[in-house]
């Protein structure tokens, strides 16, 4: 393989993952939280695919595909929730959706 | 394969009973039929069992989670087969009693009882720690529900204490199971070696001590035995408590030789204390169930003494006594239930004089009581004698405690018998309270017949419980 080694891809993946995590932890808009989550999932996918390349084993790619499917499912549910929130005229703010407070 | 069948039959029976919407009577009949089939299956198993070798038989082992060494592994040793035998017989009697009394929501009730039976059998057959743990826990679920839904007035409190105690024990045991399995690289009891880790052993020991219950861990016992439906109390004290003994015999002693050696004095002292404590409390208990419950606790102390004596006599004696106590305790609880059913109370003050005009009740209660107090010649006496002789090896004091307990047992059992049967009728005893009905006789007498057969030949159990009748060699692990 020419070009950068797997390690570089992994570092890239880590940085994107960290960015996504920051978004999840800092943003209050549920839409952006959801988008940040996608970012984290994609970072993980990148790592999976990088390892698959390095090991020469397709299992990693298969796994990444499964992750994509699950991410799609997650988006469907997440958007459904957001829409439901909006329908009930609730504020779109994760800090105010705290009915599960113990 | 036969072992798997013994486990699955009641579980599948429970499913069928729970799902098929039959009328009340048909449900009860179906459940009883399954229970009797289970007894029949046990007889087949006993007939196929090679008693001369006494080693692990009729088993199945299938890989389950290979990477961490979990397998579905079940099978029976001589002593497991005897314990399973006691279980299936007691369960059949309990289910029969429930059918006779007629519990509310019969489908759920009988399904739970059958499931309980299957779980207990699986516990006695488990040869893999994970299987053991799963079965041990599966046993608790129906018990929680049976006590919590069908129990007496204080059933909530009874269930809560029972849950708290058993869950603490279970969690400790889970930790120990995992720790043991991971350090050994396998969860199979057949393949794993021994461990000298005191803490892992303590996790198991406390779980078993709660289940038995041994002396300071018996806080759940008085309420649970008083509030549970009487046939559930019978199963609880008769066979569920014996899973602790199986645990000690199959896991505690063989797998943890050094911790056992370190802790034997402590366990023996606690067991002896429990024996006396239970006997003394039984002696002043104000109601029938209290007497039977505390005497049950005393007996568990006695059996534990035998186990931890860890010689041929003690171990054979404790298996024999475990089987005996299962049958005795179930008969006593069922009889208590029958008396309570007639009088509406188990208060000793309100009872009495029931012997007059009720010869069958009197005879049956007397026979059960005499076997319970270990009159010489009974199989319980044989068991106590073996345990007493065995535990003498650990110190003369223990043998003396057992001897003292014999006297106390005579005192509290006679108190129970007299309070029910003798002198003038008590205020709760109606003149027209019936003698035992044929159905009731049919429930209790088979248990007593088993006891009488064992009394005529206790060696039947004591000789065949361990491979080659070398109990101490078995627990020392050389035969694994």
């Amino acid at each position, binding site marked *: 393989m*020419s*070009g950068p080694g*797997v*390690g570089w*891809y*992994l*570092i*890239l993946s*880590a940085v*994107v*993952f*960290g*960015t*996504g995590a*920051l*978004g999840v*932890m*800092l*943003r*209050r*808009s*549920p*839409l*952006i939280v*959801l*988008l*940040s989550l*996608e*970012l984290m999932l*994609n970072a993980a*996918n*990148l790592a999976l*695919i990088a390892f*698959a*390349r*390095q*090991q*020469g084993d*397709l299992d990693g*790619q*298969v796994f*990444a*595909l*499964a992750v*994509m*499917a*699950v*991410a*799609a499912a997650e*988006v*469907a*549910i997440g*958007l*459904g929730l957001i*829409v*439901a929130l*909006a*329908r009930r005229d609730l504020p*779109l703010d994760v*800090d105010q959706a705290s009915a599960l407070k113990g | 394969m036969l072992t798997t069948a013994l486990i699955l039959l009641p579980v599948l029976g429970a499913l069928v009973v729970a799902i098929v919407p039959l009328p009340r009577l048909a449900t009860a009949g179906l459940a009883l039929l399954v229970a009797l089939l289970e007894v029949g299956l046990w007889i087949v198993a006993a007939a196929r069992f090679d008693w001369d070798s006494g080693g692990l038989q009729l088993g199945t082992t299938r890989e389950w989670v290979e990477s961490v060494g979990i397998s579905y592994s079940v099978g029976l040793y001589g002593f497991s087969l005897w314990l399973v035998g006691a279980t299936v017989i007691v369960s059949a009697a309990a289910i029969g009693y429930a059918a006779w009394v007629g519990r509310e929501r019969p489908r759920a009730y009988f399904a739970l009882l059958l499931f309980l039976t299957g779980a207990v059998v699986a516990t006695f057959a488990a040869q893999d720690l994970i299987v053991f743990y799963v079965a041990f826990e599966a046993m608790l679920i129906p018990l929680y529900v049976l006590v919590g839904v069908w129990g007496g007035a204080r059933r909530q409190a009874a269930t809560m204490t029972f849950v708290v105690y058993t869950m603490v024990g279970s969690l400790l045991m889970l930790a120990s199971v995992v720790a043991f399995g991971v350090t050994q690289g396998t969860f199979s009891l057949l393949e794993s070696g021994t461990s000298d880790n005191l803490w892992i052993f303590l996790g198991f020991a406390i779980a078993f001590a709660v289940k038995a219950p041994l002396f300071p861990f018996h806080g759940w016992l008085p309420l649970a035995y008083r509030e549970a439906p009487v046939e559930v109390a019978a199963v609880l004290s008769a066979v569920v408590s014996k899973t602790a003994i199986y645990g000690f015999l199959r896991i505690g002693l063989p797998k943890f030789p050094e911790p056992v050696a370190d802790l034997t004095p402590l366990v023996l002292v606690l067991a002896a204390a429990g024996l006396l404590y239970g006997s003394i409390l039984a002696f002043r208990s104000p109601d029938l169930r209290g007497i039977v419950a505390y005497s049950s606790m005393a007996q568990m102390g006695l059996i534990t003494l035998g186990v931890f004596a860890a010689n041929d006599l003690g171990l054979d004696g404790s298996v024999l006594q475990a089987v005996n106590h299962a049958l005795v305790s179930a008969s006593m609880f069922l009889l208590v239930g029958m008396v309570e059913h007639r009088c509406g109370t188990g208060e000793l003050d309100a009872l009495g004089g029931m012997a007059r005009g009720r010869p069958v009740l009197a005879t049956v209660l007397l026979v059960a009581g005499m076997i319970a107090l270990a009159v010489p010649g009974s199989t319980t006496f044989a068991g106590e004698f073996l345990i007493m002789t065995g535990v003498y090896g650990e110190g003369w004091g223990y043998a003396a405690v057992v001897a003292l307990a014999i006297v106390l047992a005579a005192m509290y059992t006679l108190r129970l018998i007299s309070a029910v049967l003798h002198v003038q009728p008590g205020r709760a005893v109606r003149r027209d309270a019936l003698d035992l009905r044929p159905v009731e006789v049919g429930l209790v007498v088979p248990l007593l017949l088993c006891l009488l057969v064992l009394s005529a030949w206790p060696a039947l159990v004591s000789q065949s419980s361990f491979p080659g009748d070398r109990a101490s060699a078995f627990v020392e692990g050389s035969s694994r």
Partner: protein
Amino acid sequence: MGDVLVWLIWFLAAGGLLASGAAVVSVSNPFYSALALIANLASLAVLYLLLSAEFLAAAQVLVYAGSVMVMFLFVVAYLGGRADAPWAGGPPLLRTAALVAAIALLVEVVVVLGLAWGDNLSDPAEISAAFGSPGAIGELFLTDHLLAFEITSIVLLVAAVGGVILGTTPRRRGENEHRREA
């Protein structure tokens, strides 16, 4: 020469990835945020190609950027102006903690990678030409990972049903209320 080209493409893709990622998180309008994520996905697809994952790259673009993000944009548009929420807010302690946690994770990963750098991270296995082709992946899915495949499909189905239920329930209740009022 080929090496240099690959490095160049890699740098471009990586730069796009990081920049668009930062944009996703930092832009205050979800609409732009979603657009930035599309750019992010496109950069990723390029990286996948470099890693011989042709099928995944295509799927990434078609499924993710194509359909999932479109759904996103639809929702953002549907919610309209109300969707705006303040960027951060909350106690400053929270913000600090979030930063610390994210940086800690990053540092840890980098340290771990650094520890393992010398092992065999830089000498990837030899692969055949079919590596990452739809055929190879499809074969794996229908043989070794059949169960995972089926379960994924069930998850998707459940998610679809869930989405429908989440979207429809309140409207029905609203209708009933209207009827009752009328």
